[in-house]
């Protein structure tokens, strides 16, 4: 009593071709079971009874492809992921932004381009809070605007809750920071409202135009492009360059680089961390 008919070789090839051409997700020929096990529920929700019908929905409705990408990729994030990145932020990039604020720049805008369940954006909000207090300017926190976006509406929902279990909260977060920025509610840890208020989360598909997002001083695009083809990566970084201010910064995951890609960025390093600026 299958809710969707088992995927045929022809249907798999059509969906596989679509995934590689639109977003560069390159499935192996024997991964038909992945499509069937991960996308059956979506097919049912769309009223499709075969994967051929699901394919037609993906083509006809631009809202469907992001859901497919979300289901075919893995969500994993942690607090202050990649220590070197956060050290670079603290020692190099934030001091640059503080100088800009002193010189009268009204706002520093940051984008977490695949914010998942919120840890990256909230880690930054915590670091900014710590640094502003250390420098004796707690009022500066309000001049940072952090925007998190994700292809998954479920991840956005969870990020807005800002509530985590003890395992999740322990992944990358020190006991001191946990005590300073969370309060315990029954068995869960709720982030303080003043940190929640520093970040805004929305559903966004990286395949769309970035222009409506406005311009940014810092973009986190970490562990996002790893799933995608070379051409999709190049398009993605070109679009990021288009919304990054001329003196802005791009941060990638610790295991990522732009090596071998046509991308309008050049790398800089500080201590062990790497960041990217416009060429």
């Amino acid at each position: 009593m299958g809710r969707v008919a088992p995927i045929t070789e022809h249907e798999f090839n059509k969906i596989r071709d679509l995934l590689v051409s639109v977003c560069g997700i390159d499935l192996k020929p024997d991964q038909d079971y992945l499509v069937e096990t991960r996308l059956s529920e979506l097919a049912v929700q769309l009223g499709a009874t075969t994967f051929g019908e699901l394919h037609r929905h993906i083509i006809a409705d631009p809202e469907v492809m992001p859901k497919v990408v979300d289901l075919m990729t893995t969500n994993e994030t942690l607090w202050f992921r990649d220590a070197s990145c956060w050290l670079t932020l603290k020692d190099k990039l934030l001091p640059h932004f503080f100088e800009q604020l002193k010189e009268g720049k009204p706002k520093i805008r940051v984008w977490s381009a695949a914010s998942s369940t919120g840890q990256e954006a909230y880690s930054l909000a915590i670091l900014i809070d710590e640094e502003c207090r250390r420098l004796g300017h707690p009022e500066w926190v309000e001049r940072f605007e952090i925007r998190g976006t994700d292809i998954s509406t479920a991840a956005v929902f969870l990020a807005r809750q800002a509530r985590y279990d003890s395992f999740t909260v322990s992944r990358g977060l020190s006991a001191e920071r946990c005590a300073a920025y969370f309060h315990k509610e029954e068995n869960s840890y709720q982030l303080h409202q003043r940190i929640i208020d520093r970040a805004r989360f929305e559903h966004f598909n990286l395949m769309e135009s970035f222009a409506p997002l406005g311009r940014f001083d810092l973009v986190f695009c970490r562990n996002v492009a790893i799933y995608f083809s070379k051409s999709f990566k190049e398009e993605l970084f070109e679009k990021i360059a288009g919304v990054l201010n001329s003196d802005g910064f791009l941060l990638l995951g610790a295991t990522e680089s732009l090596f071998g890609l046509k991308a309008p960025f050049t790398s800089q390093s500080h201590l062990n961390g790497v960041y990217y600026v416009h060429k």
Partner: protein
Amino acid sequence: MSAEAKKRVLIIDDSQSLRNILHEALEVLRFEVSEAEGAEAALASVQAHLPDLIILDWHMPGMDGYELFLKLRDNPQTAEIPVIMLTAEDRKDSMLKAIRAGVRYYLTKPFTHEDLLTRVVQVLKLDLP
């Protein structure tokens, strides 16, 4: 989420430590979480209180998770309860068998809490405006 709207989730797994981890993870969503260590306890629990969602392991002593799923699916009272299978059983044939039988999502251990919670949110449609 108001107290009246609390969703009820049943975790069925023979490992106490995993039940504890899942229990805590699901409480983040302010669910009312209950546990069963096997099929028999699960059937009794479902009869007492129909859950909104079941998280089900495959390999358990006695009736396994797949058999239990079929039993729930074939009972009109429980047929509509969505089931997410969370199991170390990662053979392609088993995954397909479960999905074709009507399991909503199939997650293999080790799993990320982000993946589990996003699938739970999707099944229960908590992210709809």
